[in-house]
């Protein structure tokens, strides 16, 4: 049901909204307005309060303080919440978790339309339209549990929209999805919302999805740190980003950290956010600090994450790590360079295959990880990343193929491998009722370290993973980011030369993630630890020296992040951003006109085109035919997401063959 015209009130109005769970304050004092027919985003890490707020708006959870109005109705009781539910649709968090696994696609939709009392005829019509729109029609009879993640999410969307609500509340609909499905989901959502004149409140943990929203709110620690359109937020902290590349990365980093608060390593690049400076001034100031011997030094467009962290710093919400990169090394670490004198690969996968019943989770995966390198395995949930890692560390026998870790065959010497590696699993294997130090000592005991060595290693770990000050805290009381560092510390207890990290940053906030990456960087550069890390954050991929993209059990690309982007830019030209007055319609028109990689980002369209001038000319023509006003066309740098989507599309076009 759509509200009659554009009413005077916004779809959602929150004032001083507060939600507590016992003594825990989940959301405190948030003011927020969602206007009619806009896509409003809530961006923030796990535990920032997004879900609590959305549940309250959906009327499925009570709250303690402040006021909430939905379509002008004040929600303060179960009764008032019920009165607006006819006009709401809510999709809770979790990939298809709220759907019914044993019911088919059809039956799932039917349940939602029947429980919403949609008349049978209308329900059938809407279902047909929505299934077509989401391209789910061929799968109507398939039980929901046998759908892919992307299809589940689209089915969830169909179920949420079947009664044509005026407002949909979607809680992290894209978390864990592969970039192709994510793009597809956003496109579908944008088109449907515009067609039906629906307002949407959508949350995400991915900073790079900010451009999908008309307006958004950045959440951290239960507060809205900033609000506005993506452009407004990007302008909230004046400053410029400078990137540079040097031979002596560690020293340069240490030097920069002394002068600037926001310094970050990303693969072979150092990134510095210079607050309050324009581009030229920023480059100059950074240049002064790094001095001679810089291979490259230039300004670059800042990302939302840079702004987010700068904002948190302004508001005093960031606890700084007390030291920069010291030259601290563990003298007692095994002299691994002597032990394995010859250079080369520390980890090598050769045609690894793993079947689970009739399902092939890993399909002929090969890659090499050089000593001291940070190697990223990037892919969606279910791409086969964890399975590949488990085979390499000897937790799971491969169906076919083999692998070498630290020069030893994983088939013949799994024990010897295990002594030389550290493994941090997706679920941090920590004992939550033990303190930080007790956890480290426990792992020292498991690896058979004697007392003296155990004490020595504990001190080293506390320093390396920046856990000083938390020693005697129970693990259960630690925030996610600290737990993650402790889990890393426990994996380091026996001084391994190779680290396997399986999605270590899932659910950790951006600041925690940055700090974690700083530690990984030190381990890699100062301690020469080889690191294999998996992640589904596209942005994080850029931290790696080398990258393998996984999709459907296969590796679809394998190169350094910069190389990958360069190749894509060479192959397809560049990324163009098209600003129009009607984005959804423009997207359809441009797709029909045969443009590649067309996707919708809020009010903008992104597409790939080789020749900018010719492309702009064609765009102008296509849009003019549909009477869509073109506001601007601009060149944008390609992102990891573009790279990933491009490779997956190419693979699917090739009939599933990789590379």
């Amino acid at each position: 049901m759509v509200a009659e015209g554009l009413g005077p009130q916004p779809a959602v109005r929150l004032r001083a909204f507060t939600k507590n769970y016992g003594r825990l304050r989940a959301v405190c004092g948030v003011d927020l307005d969602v206007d009619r027919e806009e896509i409003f985003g809530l961006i923030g890490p796990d535990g920032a309060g997004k879900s609590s707020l959305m549940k309250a708006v959906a009327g499925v959870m009570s709250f303690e303080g402040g006021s909430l109005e939905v379509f002008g109705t004040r929600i303060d009781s179960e009764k008032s919440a019920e009165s607006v539910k006819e006009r709401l649709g809510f999709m809770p968090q979790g990939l298809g978790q709220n759907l019914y696994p044993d019911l088919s696609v059809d039956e799932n939709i039917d349940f939602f339309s029947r429980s919403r009392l949609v008349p049978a005829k209308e329900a059938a019509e809407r279902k047909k339209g929505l299934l077509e729109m989401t391209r789910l029609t061929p799968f109507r009879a398939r039980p929901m549990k046998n759908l892919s993640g992307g299809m589940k999410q689209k089915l969830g969307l169909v179920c949420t929209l079947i009664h044509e609500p005026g407002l949909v509340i979607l809680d992290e609909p894209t978390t864990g999805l592969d970039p192709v499905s994510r793009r597809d989901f956003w496109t579908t959502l944008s088109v449907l919302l515009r067609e039906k004149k629906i307002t949407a409140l959508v949350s995400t943990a991915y900073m790079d999805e900010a451009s999908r929203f008309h307006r958004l709110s950045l959440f951290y620690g239960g507060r809205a740190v900033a609000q506005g359109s993506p452009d407004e937020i990007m302008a909230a902290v004046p400053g410029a980003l400078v990137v540079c590349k040097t031979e002596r990365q560690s020293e340069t980093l240490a030097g920069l950290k002394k002068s600037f608060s926001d310094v970050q390593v990303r693969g072979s690049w150092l990134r510095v956010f210079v607050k309050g400076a324009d581009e030229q001034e920023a480059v100059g100031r950074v240049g002064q600090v790094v001095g001679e011997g810089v291979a490259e030094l230039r300004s670059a467009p800042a990302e939302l994450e840079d702004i987010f962290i700068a904002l948190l710093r302004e508001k005093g919400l960031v606890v700084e790590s007390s030291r920069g990169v010291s030259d601290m090394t563990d003298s007692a670490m095994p002299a691994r360079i002597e032990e394995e004198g010859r250079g080369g690969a520390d980890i090598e996968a050769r045609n690894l295959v793993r079947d689970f019943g009739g399902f092939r989770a890993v399909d002929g995966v090969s890659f090499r990880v050089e000593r001291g390198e940070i190697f990223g395995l990037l892919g969606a949930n279910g791409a086969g990343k964890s399975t590949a890692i488990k085979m390499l560390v000897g937790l799971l026998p491969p169906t076919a193929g083999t692998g070498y870790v630290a020069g030893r065959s994983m088939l013949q010497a799994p024990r010897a491998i295990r002594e030389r590696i550290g493994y941090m699993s997706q679920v941090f294997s920590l004992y939550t009722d033990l303190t930080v130090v007790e956890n480290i000592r426990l792992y020292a005991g498991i690896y058979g370290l004697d007392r003296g060595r155990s004490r020595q290693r504990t001190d080293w770990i506390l320093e390396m993973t920046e856990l000083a000050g938390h020693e005697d805290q129970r693990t259960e009381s630690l925030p996610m980011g600290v737990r993650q560092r402790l889990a890393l510390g426990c994996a380091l207890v026996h001084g391994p030369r190779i680290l396997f990290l399986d999605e270590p940053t899932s659910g950790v906030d951006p600041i925690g993630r940055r700090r974690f990456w700083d530690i990984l960087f030190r381990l890699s550069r100062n301690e020469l630890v080889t690191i294999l890390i998996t992640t589904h954050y596209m942005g994080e991929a850029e931290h790696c020296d080398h990258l393998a993209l996984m999709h459907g059990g296969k590796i679809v690309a394998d190169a350094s992040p910069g190389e990958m982007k360069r190749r894509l830019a060479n192959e397809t030209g560049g990324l163009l951003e098209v600003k129009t007055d009607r984005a959804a319609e423009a997207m359809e028109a441009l797709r029909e006109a045969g443009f590649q990689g067309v996707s919708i980002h809020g009010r903008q369209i992104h597409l790939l085109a080789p020749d900018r001038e010719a492309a702009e000319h064609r765009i102008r023509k296509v849009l003019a035919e549909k009477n869509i006003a073109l506001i601007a066309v601009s060149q944008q740098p390609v992102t990891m997401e573009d790279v990933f989507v491009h490779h997956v599309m190419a693979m699917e076009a090739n009939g599933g063959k990789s590379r």
Partner: protein
Amino acid sequence: MNFKRILAVTSREARGMVRDKLFFAMAFIVPALLMLTFGYGLSLDVMHSPLAALDYDRTSMSRDYLHRFMDSPAFSFRGYLKSERQIYPLLASGTVRAVLIIPEHFQQNLLAGRPAAVQTLIDGTFPFRAQTVKGYVAAINNSFNLRELSLYLCRTRAMSRRRALAGLEPIKAQVRCLYNRNLRSDWSIAPRLMMMVMMICPPFLTAMGVVREKETGAIYNIYSSTITRGEYLLGKLTPYVVVSIFNAVVLWLIATEVFGAPFRGGRLFFFASSVLYVICTTGMGLIVSVLVGTQVAASLVTFIVTVVPTVFYSGMFVPISSLSPSGRVVARLLPAMYFTNIVSGCFLKGVGFKVLWSDAAVLAIYAAALFMLGYSRFHKRPAS
């Protein structure tokens, strides 16, 4: 109340229950399986206890004495032993549960009018069973004594055998057990098992069914929709009640057909009370499900609130009248006891509505109270 919405919830629930393998097993297989395993395993009759004998006398009289044991269905004779050394290993391994030791000169002493002592060793690890075996030994021994004494009287006092026996046993106890003439424990246990299984299974099914939705987040489909909580509970619980009623019929068939328990009461009354009881226990599952949030917690709490009371306070193993005064109060506060009354009344005693209406009425009140409580505690807008 909108019937269409209730139907939407019910049909979805029913489909899920049939298609989910685990749920299907819990709904349709577990109850019958529980009934069968408990029924066969829980027989309280002590029959065919394995017995061995060490006969030092080896006379016709000692063999005669032993034959009385061999012929009794209470014992199953496993053979003669050769020496005392064999006894303890056999008892320790559980191969035999009792050993009779007949001393030398058994016949000689008896014929000379001197008493003879026969030692019986019984495995006392299960007091109840040992007590029963002891009783059998005493009874068989007694009857042998009586016969010997009567023969002695016949011989010495020239009495007829009948007079001798009558003189020896002036009062003959004529005991007749009503309702279960042969005191077959399976007759009394099978119907009570019905009570127990129907106390455990419906709450499990219900609690898991509701809590599973909470765990996956599917409950938000309900919370965020226009379905009222009454409609949801009615739609959601109807399939569980229907399945449980179906199970009650299956269990009734197992009790009467497989275990051969006699059913003497009114079928209609019994069916109606079973329905009440099942609604009652489904309501208990509902209460559990509104209190906890995870399936693990739900199964634990359900176990505690169903199994414990049925074992101790339902009259299943221990009659309510044998409980301590406080135990009797607890028993009266729980629904299991009332259905036990109905079950044993309908099966063995053959009574019906006239005698048992009050028990049925308590169940009805109970069911109504549980559902009212569940309804009042279930909210579509909880605090967390």
